[in-house]
């Protein structure tokens, strides 16, 4: 017994340790062996793993866009950027025909647009109404259209932006001149805005046999309602006469439009244009 109570020999120690290991790890060993067996047997493995994979696949199917969309988008974007030239070469022939078609369609629309715009301009401001207001509702249009020599019927001097009447002259009495001046300004503004973005002034509004000649000056314009046909030299004549009139009779600053000013300009217009012969 003495020998047994003394410390074990190295062999005995190793044997004891092995026994301890066996005791401690035998359960784990069994489990590892089972796992190994399962991994090696395909049927067993599939039974365990398939449901999980199936579940993940379902998840991916459902959430692909949200989970991976951005990443894929980035990849595609990068790829596209890298191969721009190839893509252009590929798409260009198709694009060419699409562009051609598009431009043709746009031209067609533009053409139709202009047609309707012309129609709307006519409706909008109803030239017939305006001309009727100028010349009265009589049948004078029929008679006047037979005479070809130009004749001035009414003259309006209008502040450019506001459309306020600065003075007027009329062969026959017309009480609506303020309103006509406003309407004329609206037509003028509309036409200038729509057709050339205000870069050029409208010079003539024409409707059937009637004409309104417009003489533009920096802060106001003249509108002369006429019948008959007017030659270039007659137009020049009229234009000169109007400009001279403005220099002599219209104050430089017409900011505030009041009746004292308009009365003064109106009577000056009568004086200068009552006997005016456009052909001289």
């Amino acid at each position, binding site marked *: 017994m003495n020998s047994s109570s003394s410390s074990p020999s190295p062999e005995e120690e190793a044997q004891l340790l092995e026994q301890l290991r066996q005791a401690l790890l035998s359960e784990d060993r069994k489990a590892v062996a089972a796992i190994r067996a399962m991994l090696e047997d395909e049927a067993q493995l599939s039974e365990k793993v398939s449901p999980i994979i199936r579940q993940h696949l379902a998840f991916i199917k459902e959430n692909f866009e949200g989970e991976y969309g951005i990443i894929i988008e980035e990849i595609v974007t990068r790829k596209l950027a890298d191969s721009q030239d190839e893509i252009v070469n590929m798409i260009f022939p198709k694009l060419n025909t699409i562009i051609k078609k598009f431009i043709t369609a746009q031209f067609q629309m533009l053409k139709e647009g202009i047609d309707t715009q012309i129609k*709307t301009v006519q409706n909008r401001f109803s030239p017939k109404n305006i001309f009727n207001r100028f010349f009265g509702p009589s049948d004078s249009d029929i008679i006047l259209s037979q005479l070809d020599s130009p004749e001035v019927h009414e003259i309006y001097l209008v502040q450019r932006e506001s*459309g*306020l009447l600065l003075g007027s002259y009329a062969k026959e009495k017309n009480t609506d001149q303020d*309103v006509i001046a*406003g309407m004329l300004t*609206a037509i003028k*503004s509309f036409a*200038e805005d729509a057709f050339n973005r*205000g870069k050029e002034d409208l010079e003539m509004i024409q409707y059937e046999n009637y004409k309104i000649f417009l003489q533009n000056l920096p802060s106001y314009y003249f509108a002369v309602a006429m019948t008959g046909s007017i030659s270039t030299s007659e137009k020049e004549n009229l234009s000169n006469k109007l400009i001279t009139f403005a220099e002599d009779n219209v104050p430089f600053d017409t900011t505030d*439009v009041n009746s004292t000013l308009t009365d003064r300009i109106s009577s000056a217009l009568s004086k200068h244009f009552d006997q005016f012969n456009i052909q001289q």
Partner: protein
Amino acid sequence: MLSKKVILTGSFGVGKTSLFERFINNKFEDKYLTTIGVKVGKKLVNTDKGDLSMMIWDIAGEVAQNKVPTSYFLGTSGIIYVFDVTRPSTYRNISEDLEYLKSINKLTTIKVVGNKKDLVSQEDLDKLLEEIPLPVNLFTSAKTGENVEKLFHDFAVEMVG
């Protein structure tokens, strides 16, 4: 007597023409006939400070003010921006619209008017005032005539004075 130009603007169908007709001819039409282009009207307004010949431009309504030919707003002494108290879409862009109008014509006075007052209650108006980011000068009804005379008369007083 002074002459001044005033323009009525705002979205379509808000009642610009109705305000114009009520003020100039004291008439109201239930039928909606959209304005094409511009209609110019004139009315003499008498004030304590003097008389005014008011030239009023009633223009076709546009959803956004930058669709209106710019030149219409030039040379105006007053702009009346009309919206419809029953249609939020007519006052939703009010800030942008007013900014735009001010940028075109810095000198003009702009009045903001909520029309068709007869169709809503005072509570509705109070709620609306909370929603609108800007002060509303007046609520009007072209139908009953309420505040229409006042709208133009107030303007005339400012212009004459």
